[in-house]
């Protein structure tokens, strides 16, 4: 019993990280119909910025964990957001009116550029950051115990907070209305006076910011990263976005949670060798029953 509960906790935290990254894929797809393959690498860049920010803050002699956390989050989110903006500006905007395929290739190119740039500028070695927050909450269940480390609690808390704020922004604010309008019909939105280019840039920045949140949290938690770390997690987050229905914001979060939970439960209760096989089989099954994902809307051919 305690083991099943522990696996649920493991899956929930892993899933919320997938969800945060999946938001970047789903929002970009929703608004311009492209898959931003460089998104996993934006996450990777944010891991490096986290380490640099940590080094900077400790250099200035700051030692209290809350200040370090807030400072690192702030710096990383700002710089990664800038990366998101620049990437859209140089790799995607010039191709706005060309076919979807060209943008896709441009995205793959961007992904390679980011990986190689980080590898060359930061070195190809494994990087690590020291542990800052230790300790865990333990609940005794029967003979065993279920535990959640404070770091994992922090991951859950910040993920929920980030997703909550984002949902509020999209649903209730003027910016959100502009995003939704652009998503529904870009041409009509621009005729009605919305600067769609600016909206698209904003969406890229939002995606990068969510990836940066995940990057800071995961880097602080696992402590280890390299320039290739964005690949696997990017694929998983993309899967989560498709699972939940690409283009749908709640879908990305739901997809992340389902993917995280299914991986943890399958690895924990059956076999970790085949956990990816299981997750992707689940994806195939869901897409057979619901081709546009769990919460996605079927695409209507625009005439």
């Amino acid at each position, binding site marked *: 019993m305690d083991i099943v509960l522990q696996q649920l906790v493991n899956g929930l935290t892993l899933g919320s990280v997938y969800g945060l990254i999946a938001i970047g894929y789903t929002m970009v797809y929703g608004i311009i119909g492209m898959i931003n393959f460089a998104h996993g690498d934006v996450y990777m860049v944010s891991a490096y910025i986290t380490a640099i920010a940590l080094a900077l803050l400790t250099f200035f002699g700051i030692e209290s964990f809350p200040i370090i956390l807030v400072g690192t989050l702030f710096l990383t989110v700002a710089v990664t957001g800038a990366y998101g903006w620049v990437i859209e500006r140089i790799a995607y905007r010039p191709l706005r009116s060309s076919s979807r395929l060209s943008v896709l290739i441009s995205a793959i190119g961007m992904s390679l550029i980011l990986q190689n740039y980080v590898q060359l500028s930061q070195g*190809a*070695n*494994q990087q690590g950051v020291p542990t800052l927050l230790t300790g865990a909450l333990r609940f005794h269940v029967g003979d065993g115990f279920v*535990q959640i480390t404070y770091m994992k609690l922090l991951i859950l808390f910040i993920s929920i907070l980030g997703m909550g704020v984002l949902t509020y922004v999209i649903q209730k604010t003027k910016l959100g209305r502009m995003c939704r309008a652009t998503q529904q019909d870009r041409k009509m939105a621009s005729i009605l006076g919305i600067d769609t280019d600016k909206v698209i840039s904003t969406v890229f920045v939002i995606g990068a910011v969510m990836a940066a949140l995940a990057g800071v949290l995961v880097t602080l938690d696992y*402590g*280890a990263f*390299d320039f290739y770390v964005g690949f696997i997690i990017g694929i998983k987050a993309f899967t989560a976005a498709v699972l939940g229905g690409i283009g749908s914001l709640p879908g990305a979060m739901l997809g992340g949670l389902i993917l995280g939970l299914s991986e943890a*439960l399958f690895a*924990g209760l059956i076999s*970790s060798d085949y956990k990816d096989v299981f997750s992707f089989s689940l994806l195939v099954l869901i897409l057979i029953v619901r081709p546009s994902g769990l919460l996605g809307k079927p695409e209507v051919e625009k005439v």
Partner: protein
Amino acid sequence: MSNAVVRKTLISLAIASAATLAQADVVIGVAGPHTGAYAAFGEQLWKGAEKAAADINAAGGVNGEMIKLVKADDACEPKQAVSVANRLVDSDGALAVVGHFCSSSSIPASKIYEEAGVIMVTPASTNPTLTDQGLPNVFRVCGRDDQQGDVAASYIVDKLKAKRIAVIHDKDTYGKGLADAMKSTLNSYGVKEVMYEGLTRGEKDFNALITKIRSVDADVVYFGGLHSEAGPLVRQLREQGSKAIFISGDGIVSDEFVSVAGSPKYVDGVLMTFGAPPTSYPSGKKVIQEFRDSGYEPEGYTLYSYTAMQVAVAALANNNLDPIKGAKWLKTHSVDTVMGKKDFDDKGDLTVSDYVMYEWDAQGKYHVVE
């Protein structure tokens, strides 16, 4: 003939002879993961080979020819290993190769070297298949995973007297091969592992797997794989409150293991099998001192790489730079190296295996377990 023409002819003659001189260099490839997640090992290989080549050149080269090293980056990817191996034999004209590092790269590349008649001496690939293929040109100056697995298994059974052993591997040629070797010796002692599972290379979250290790109540976790996965694995193991003894093989012998784990306190007490300290041989004293003087600690595979270079050069030097004859010669002659005298058997393995158990301490250093 005017002066200018004479001068031009002389210059072009000079250039032509310089070019032939350059071609007469002995080209030796240094193949390994110079980039990628395992680049720390590529660095060790390169440092060792570079120093060996410089020392040999300073002493007059190979039969008067200078050694020219070519760096070949396989990133521990089998496909890339094949393409750099082809490049080394075709366009670089290498006579010998020191490398590769990962067994999953060395095995496919070895066939290309065999076809091209090039000597391959790996400082680090321990998977038994590499020499069991029966290729005449393949040698290694490290041990084999079946020997390494034996040492680990008997340590677990005899010294630790452990009963509940979880065996984890990274599904790669080296990691799984090592885990399987350890497991089969363990089983031959009549001990059955309580768990045998693989994890995915490149992932960082192993919490689900660790909860499972906790649920089977393992008192020893044996991991076949490299430090980039071993670091997060041991850290998350401790974070989940498990006190199981963590044992791994020579895939974690790098300082990076500590930084990837996040803190020396997580690696404290981790055990690993690795060849007898390469720095302990009297014949290596001078080289080690020179390394340290230059500000580099020859850790892990550095001296193995130096040794591999010496073996390759000895084979070429004693056989008029003919690598095919050189490979035959190595099987019947011993070579004096910085790691003592090395003898090879018919397969190209060392005749003496010297695996011992090391332990990592709370300062993040490793030392031999007495």
